[in-house]
């Protein structure tokens, strides 16, 4: 025993074991998220179950679990399955539990299709007829499928066209109208009379824009009138539904698809997920605005935190007279990193939004009041709040880097007649760059995963527009934004249809992980490049 103790083997086992355990936990976590998240988009086969009581259920198998049994004695295990039957508008729920014992037969009807709709989730059923207005085009599943897939793209393009008109042209018109209205308010605030020529000119402008608006709406109506195609479907249990084609986002016939065909659908769904806007209160569609918001917020945060942290660290380490006071400041800064993030959020609301934002509004945007412009949550304030939250990380990393720069490097520069500032700028700053980036990496990782302070400083469930668009000044830092972390919380735990949304949680989590990883990796690559360039003397 003593011998064993002296060899040191137990310590190796202990440390190695601890490491292995930690790795296992991390790998397990990632594997679980990947398994749940990546499987979500795979188009599963549609099965028609006929139950003992004659009822029929048609849908995609989503889960299978053992039914818990109580009482004495060993019993045969009983199973039940969860089937995604869709047709929420008809059945009331997307999912149904079936005891396996009740199933009499199950088959995979070749004609079964699943339609992803803009509203009410998926429809699972069989085509009964396809119509263009009152004209019947097809009255039988196989032919109907052909007609459906043939007309779908065209109908959808028309629908998108109408939507784009509404969004872009109508959006531009109301933007201009709002500008004129605010201009008038500003004029009146400055004391202009109602019959001031500028005001009447603006009013005329508003009227003209309203005419433009009516013209655009007429065009929209004309396009809408062409959206005449419909499909009549039968669902399990004989229910029937007539559906306009433009309401269909995607039509898939999984039972007839090969693995490659399914892979194609899978990829198109993944692409939609990362590139499209959310639909149906975030439970369907994509998360692009949330990705965009997360990345933009982290970048704005980085831009704010780096100079703040670096300058602070330089002052603490290079200029301040080392002593009790500086040590106290240092300890305070280090402890700031441990303050709960919601506290920073509260500070952000109180200071940035109410005080700074409110002052900006009353100085620069009085005509828009009482509607706040900057005096409400927005991406700028959220980013600055996170910058405050993460500034200790950057300060500590930079300070450590500064302390590690050999004194003789500074002396070499000073000895050549460089001033202290020149030495800082030309020698110390480049040499400390890798440490700054290390700090920034840690700060970004922390910021990308932070949700609590954002919820009160500008994140919303659904932002009407991205913080970047085509209107001057293009980057609208006062706008509210979406964020993946909040999206996870909202979709998973606040949505009306939790069962359908739960897999989205995993997918979104995976995406958030991926983004944090990508941000970190890029910073690490830059740091290593810099390190190579500025490697400190080995002698």
């Amino acid at each position, binding site marked *: 025993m003593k011998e064993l103790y002296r060899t040191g083997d137990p310590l190796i086992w202990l440390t190695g074991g601890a490491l292995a355990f930690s790795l296992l936990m991390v790998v397990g976590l990632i594997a679980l998220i990947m398994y749940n998240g990546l499987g979500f988009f795979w188009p599963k086969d549609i099965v028609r179950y006929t139950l003992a009581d004659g009822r029929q259920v048609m849908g995609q198998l989503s889960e299978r679990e053992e039914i818990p049994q109580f009482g004495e004695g060993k019993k045969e295990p009983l199973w039940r399955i969860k089937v995604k039957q869709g047709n929420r508008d008809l059945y009331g729920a997307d999912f149904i539990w079936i005891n396996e014992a009740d199933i009499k037969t199950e088959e995979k009807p070749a004609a079964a299709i699943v339609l992803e709709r803009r509203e009410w989730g998926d429809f699972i059923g069989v085509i009964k007829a396809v119509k263009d207005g009152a004209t019947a085009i097809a009255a039988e599943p196989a032919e109907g499928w052909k007609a459906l897939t043939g007309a779908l793209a065209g109908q959808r393009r028309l629908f998108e066209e109408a939507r784009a008109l509404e969004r872009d042209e109508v959006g531009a018109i109301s933007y201009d109208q709002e500008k004129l209205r605010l201009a008038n308010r500003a004029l009146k605030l400055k004391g202009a009379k109602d019959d001031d020529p500028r005001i009447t000119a603006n009013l005329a402008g508003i009227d003209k824009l309203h005419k433009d608006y009516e013209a655009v709406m007429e065009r929209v109506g004309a396009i809408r009138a062409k959206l005449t195609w419909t499909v009549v479907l039968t669902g399990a249990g004989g229910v029937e539904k007539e559906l306009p084609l433009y309401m269909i986002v995607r039509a898939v016939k999984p039972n007839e698809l090969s693995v490659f065909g399914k892979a194609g659908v899978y990829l198109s769904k993944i692409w939609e997920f990362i590139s499209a806007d959310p639909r149906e209160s975030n439970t369907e569609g994509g998360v692009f605005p949330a990705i965009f918001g997360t990345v933009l917020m982290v970048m704005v945060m980085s831009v704010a935190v780096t100079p703040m942290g670096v300058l602070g660290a330089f002052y603490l380490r290079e200029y301040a007279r080392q002593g009790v006071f500086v040590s106290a400041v240092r300890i305070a800064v280090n402890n700031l990193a441990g303050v709960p993030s919601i506290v920073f959020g509260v500070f952000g609301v109180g200071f940035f939004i109410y005080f700074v934002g409110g002052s900006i509004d009353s100085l620069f945007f009085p005509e828009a009041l009482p509607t706040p412009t900057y005096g409400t949550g927005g991406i700028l304030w959220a980013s600055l709040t996170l910058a405050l939250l993460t500034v200790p990380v950057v300060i500590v990393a930079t300070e450590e880097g500064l302390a590690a720069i050999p004194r003789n490097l500074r*002396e070499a520069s*000073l000895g050549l007649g460089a001033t202290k500032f020149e030495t800082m700028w030309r020698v110390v700053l480049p040499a400390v760059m890798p440490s700054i980036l290390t700090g920034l990496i840690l700060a970004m990782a922390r910021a990308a995963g932070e949700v609590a302070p954002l919820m009160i400083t500008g994140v919303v469930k659904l932002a009407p527009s991205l913080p970047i668009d085509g209107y001057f000044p293009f980057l609208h830092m006062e706008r509210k934004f979406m964020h993946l972390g909040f999206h996870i919380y909202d979709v998973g735990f606040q949505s009306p249809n939790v069962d359908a949304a739960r897999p989205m949680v995993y997918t979104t989590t995976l995406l958030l992980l991926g983004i944090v990883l990508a941000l970190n990796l890029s910073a690490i690559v830059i740091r290593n490049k810099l390190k190579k360039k500025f490697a*400190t003397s080995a*002698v």
Partner: protein
Amino acid sequence: MPTQEKLQDTGHMESGDARNTEAGQGYLPRRLAGLNSASHAANGPREMIMDVRALTLAYGSKVALKDVNISFLKNQITALIGPSGCGKSTLLRCLNRLNDLVDSVTLKGQIMFNGMDIYDPIINISELRKRVGMVFQKPNPFPKTVYENVAYGPRIHGVGRKGELDGMVEECLKSAALWDEVKDRLHDSALGLSGGQQQRLCIARALAVKPDILLMDEPCSALDPISTSKIEDLMVDLKSRYTIIIVTHNMQQASRVSDYTGFMLLGEMIEFNDTPKIFQGPKDKRTEDYITGRFG
């Protein structure tokens, strides 16, 4: 030479504050006058370039230099020897005011350079350090390219034109006997050079700001014998254009390269004289003990 006799006298003034301050005021200017007139005739110009007068320095309460007097002559190599901790580096770092970086330093006395006390508040420290270059014990090239290392000083002092810089870099690297070895890797990192090359690069870097004086603090202590001899040869070459003050641990080195040698002990300048005289006939018992290896 009369000057040397007198300088040697200062070495014996070990204590007595009153006498020293007197000497600091009255005695040194006379020495200066004698130096200029007497030496011209015999050995060509022997102009004094830097003159340390009654320098006393303390780190906090720890006295590191006690009433040091020493004169450095132009275009000569002066070696400072002595056991470690005796204050050689401290003295050297006073000459370009690098000691200013240490917060706790207090200093008394004067260091005259071009007729001005370098500790006078009107002195521009950057300008002083430009005129008094330094090479450190450990090679400390910047983590930049070879070219950028040499160009650093000129850039700081306002040379921006590429052609001018290129010429200066080449000239300095040639002066430091490094050009042939690095001319094909000017734009590689200086950290890839060997220790001896790095040290010569540091010399080239110091030369690039056109200093009058080159301070070298044990420049060979981290180097192998071959690199050491290269640097020693280099010093002798540079003597015609620069005044060199070198701190060394190595007595052979001092006797090989230097014209004058000062021996320090516990913060005092014990003896200062022509190098041959110090090594062949030291006046002070402690110098003799040190040179013959009895302590240190």
